[in-house]
């Protein structure tokens, strides 16, 4: 199901860059899915545990369930999938144009814990704010 290992063939696709074809498809759509609190990428907990967040490797969620729980949330309000974010208005509106094609949350009702956010900004790491996570920050 996961299509991300198909990178080699991608070059043949005109107009697509390698990462465009590297889609992150949630393996489930039940309540198991969670959204990354940085980029709003939606996957299952297991997917986060296996690969972390493809957009936000700096969150270091790989294999760290505790960290996943802190850096993702299940309070997702609507999802969308981007097949070709570069040409998608939806992606533009949600500000996920530059992010990997995949499934994202339209809105997320949670924010990164302040501690983690501070820690990242101390390291000079930019959080991949999308509309979903930015608005969540605003609501806070």
């Amino acid at each position, binding site marked *: 199901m996961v299509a991300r290992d198909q990178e080699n063939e991608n070059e043949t696709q005109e107009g697509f860059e390698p990462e465009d074809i590297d889609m992150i498809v949630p393996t489930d759509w039940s309540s198991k899915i969670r959204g990354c609190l940085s980029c709003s990428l939606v996957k299952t907990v297991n997917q986060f545990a296996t690969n972390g967040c493809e957009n936000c490797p700096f969150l270091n969620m790989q294999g760290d369930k505790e960290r996943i*729980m*802190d850096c993702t949330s299940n309070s997702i*309000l609507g999802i969308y999938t981007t097949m*070709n974010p570069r040409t998608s*208005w939806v992606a533009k509106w949600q500000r996920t144009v530059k992010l990997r094609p*995949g*499934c994202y949350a339209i809105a997320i009702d949670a924010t990164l*814990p302040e501690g983690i956010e501070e820690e990242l900004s101390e390291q000079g790491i930019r959080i991949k704010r999308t509309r979903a996570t*930015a608005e969540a920050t605003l609501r806070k």
Partner: protein
Amino acid sequence: MGRGGAKRRDEDEEEEEDEDENPHRKRMRMFVDDEAEEDDEEDDDDDDDGDLHDLIDDEEVEAEAAQDEVDKSARQQRMRQGDLLQRDAEDIQEYVERRYGGQREVREVGSGDELQTTGIEQESLQPTAQDAKLFYVKCRIGREREAVIRLLQKHSNFLKKGQNIGITAAVAPAHIKGAIYVEAYKAESVKNAIRGLNVMIEKDMQLVPLNEMTEAMHVATTKEKTKVGDWVRVNRGLYTGDLGQVYEVHEGRGDGSVTLRLIPRINYASSKPFNDENLKSRPPQKLFDRQEAERLSETYVEEKTDTYTGERSEVWKGQTFASGMLYKRISVRQLDTDMQEPQIEELELFQAAEQRMRTEVEELEAEAPAVPLNLSSIARQRKISFFPGDSVLFIRGDLKGLRGVVKSVEGEYVVVTAKELPEPVTCEKRDLTKSFKIGDTLKVNSGRYAGDSGTVVKVEGEIIVLFNDVSKEELKVLASNLTSDADLSAAPAGHNLYQLFDLVSLNTDVRSKGVVVKVSRDSVTMLDTNGNAVVKPVQEIRGRLNDRGNRPGDKSRHPISVGDTVKVIEGPHTNRHGVVKHTADNFIFFQAPDETRNCGLLVAPARSCVVQGQKRGPSFGGFGGGGVPQFKAPQKSFGGGFGGGGRGRGRDPIIRKEVKIKAGSYKGYAGRAVDASNDKIRVELEGICKVVTVPREAVIPKDASVGSGGFSGGFGGQGFGAARGLSGNRTPMHDSYGSRTPMRDSFGSRTPMHDSFGSRTPMHDSFGSRTPLHDGFGSRTPLHDSFGSRTPLHEPRRDQFGPRTPMGDSGSRTPLHNSFVNPSHEPRTPLTDGWRPTTPAHNSSAFDPNTRGPTTPGLDDYAYREARTPITPGDPGTPAFLDARSPATPMMGPSTPYDPQGDSPAEEEDSGIGEAKAIVNVEIEQDGKRAYVKELIADSEPPKYIVHFVEEGGTAEVAFSDLKPIAPEKNDRVCLLRGEASLVGEAGTIIGVERDD
């Protein structure tokens, strides 16, 4: 994010400009060498970046941003060169997105106030004609998420095969069911994409218009997140229902949890002080008491100082306390953020905690807590109704701390004027809280004391202490519940709604009923069924109740209805008696003559009472004290009174009579009355097989004509009707004469009377005073006695009554009525004729055979009752009763012939005089001349009457004592008429009436 707001705004504007320019610029680029321009822009950018990074002072970020910039330029170049014209616009957008979007991300790290900017940025992303289009596609309900993920999967699969379906995105918004949006440049792409997916429904694909595209991405407003400082209520566990303040929010897991500040409920002595199993016996809320905790639990309290904030706290048995409050971590799910009105008591506890906190900060030099216990912030979470004229305090925004006055209210916005402001400002309700000064006159508009008003004597933050000028009580009220007195006029005028002796129920508990015993400005005092007099604001009163249909059974299951005399045989009011004023479920409210409180009203369960005597008419007689205008009472007396005619209790004489309906939708129908209540009659219609319920007023007996005129020449009964009409107070007579069952007569005559009744209402008072009348002949009708006995007024007079024969009553009464009825009764004069001769006749005849003897002395209350006793059981079957009635009934026969005799002269004269109101035949005691009374000279003392001599004509003034009513000839008895009447005041209220006989 260290950037100033002004700077940011500048940049945003610039960005916007950029956006606007885009299309043109794009075209320009096609023909002009835009490298130069590009360079310019880059320069600008660099400047911006410089600023930005200076402020941020973060080299790494800067480095990254720079790198990003390089990447972007490269990408732009590439895109600009090799792209299709069609995609240009989009590229430019993207270019902007990249140029500024990247920076935005940098900016947003740790940013605190993106509030304004995000909105504008988001605006710039509005869809354009060049963007891919959204298509609204149906899918199976509940599988929206699956659908978009499957589309993604399908797209991925196709890409692997080297094919591109052509869709760019798919959206499953939370607020849409059974449909998703698929984004593509061509509808064909969408069709291809959804083909073969079983979650999708292929038909009815719709293109979403450009201006509705953002709607698809709309985020349904989520419930407000719990924030630090919020006031919430716990909905589970030991602290269920308790007010708490959010001290810390813990995100991440599930819905997250919060640390709350609560007023602890601890039983220090208990081994499980935090056991929350038994909610019923939970300890009361009390601030944490360190000494007590240590003493009772023998567990030391540790002191802690937070390394971060420097806040001091105490730890006891693993629980953290500070300033007496418990700090408890609770899942967000256990919270009700929908704040209910805090109670004064709760706030007082928190105020005490706040006070403690303040002392700690001052005396112990402890660090001030990071989260202030700002009690006024409670107001922010409440819905406060502002009224023009309210003094308010700004609690948020630029004007925080400023006081002003509400000028007007428009929905969620309030216009406030303040001295400091040149012109009124419009602000949101949540920016404001009410604020009052000592000395303000305020009204409470909600909460426990709603409806009260008073003067502010103390202000303790949110809590205002009012001194009620009426009740002389101090009220503690929340500021938000108060409003300036200025708008009092706009408030409902409470006291017009309810009157004394209204049976009412409460809003709070519909089943609780009570009778109004006191009416004050905004509240009423109500005697409830428990016998307590409770003060209720008018707002809490649901409304008046009609208890006519409610007839609870007494001890022996006889239905008790309003107007009955009851005696209590059980319970606290044993041996007390009175007239039932209201019935509420199984309780009766009765007015006891010996009760001084609550307007003499007592309440007792119906089952502990017995109905006294027979059905009686003058249910309204006892209202002297109450003064409630109940002009319907006569109707009641009507039904009840006539019921006595040997037919058994409560039986309405109209039943089984042929009647005609004179009004309403069945007007003109004839039928037979099958059932009757006080104001309604059920009629079995002749024409159609149907039983209908019609108002009593709309029914007349078939053989009686309407109006007074029809009765002339009728038998006595009609006269009574007339007489009664003259003065409602005479109704009791019906009882006694009821035996004649001239129901319809009086009926007919009654109808026009109602008017006069209304106007005569104030006279009811006089009833009481006149009661002795009833005594006199009331002996026959048990009720009358209660009458007399109920009104203390009578006491002194009773002595004077001396020996009275019932005959006299009617006679003597007549002039009395005359006297006070006079002003209003002209039109009824003709009616009276009939009455004159017949009344005495009936009286005498009816009385002679039976109870006379015993009753006459019965004027005195005591004897009275005794006399009544045989009848009292209330059992219609009592022989005594029947006896009394049976002889009376035949009277009808004889009475009829009398009328003409007595009537004819009177009638003539009447018509001639025209002004005489009520006339009675009299005999001058000295010379035996016959005359009839024309008028009462009320002013004279002793009262005099103008009499008109029958034989020789002419009139003379005769002292009351010299007059003797004449009984009809066939009647052997002679009535001695003697009495006194004095008119007091213009209202014509009779204070005392006595008559002999």
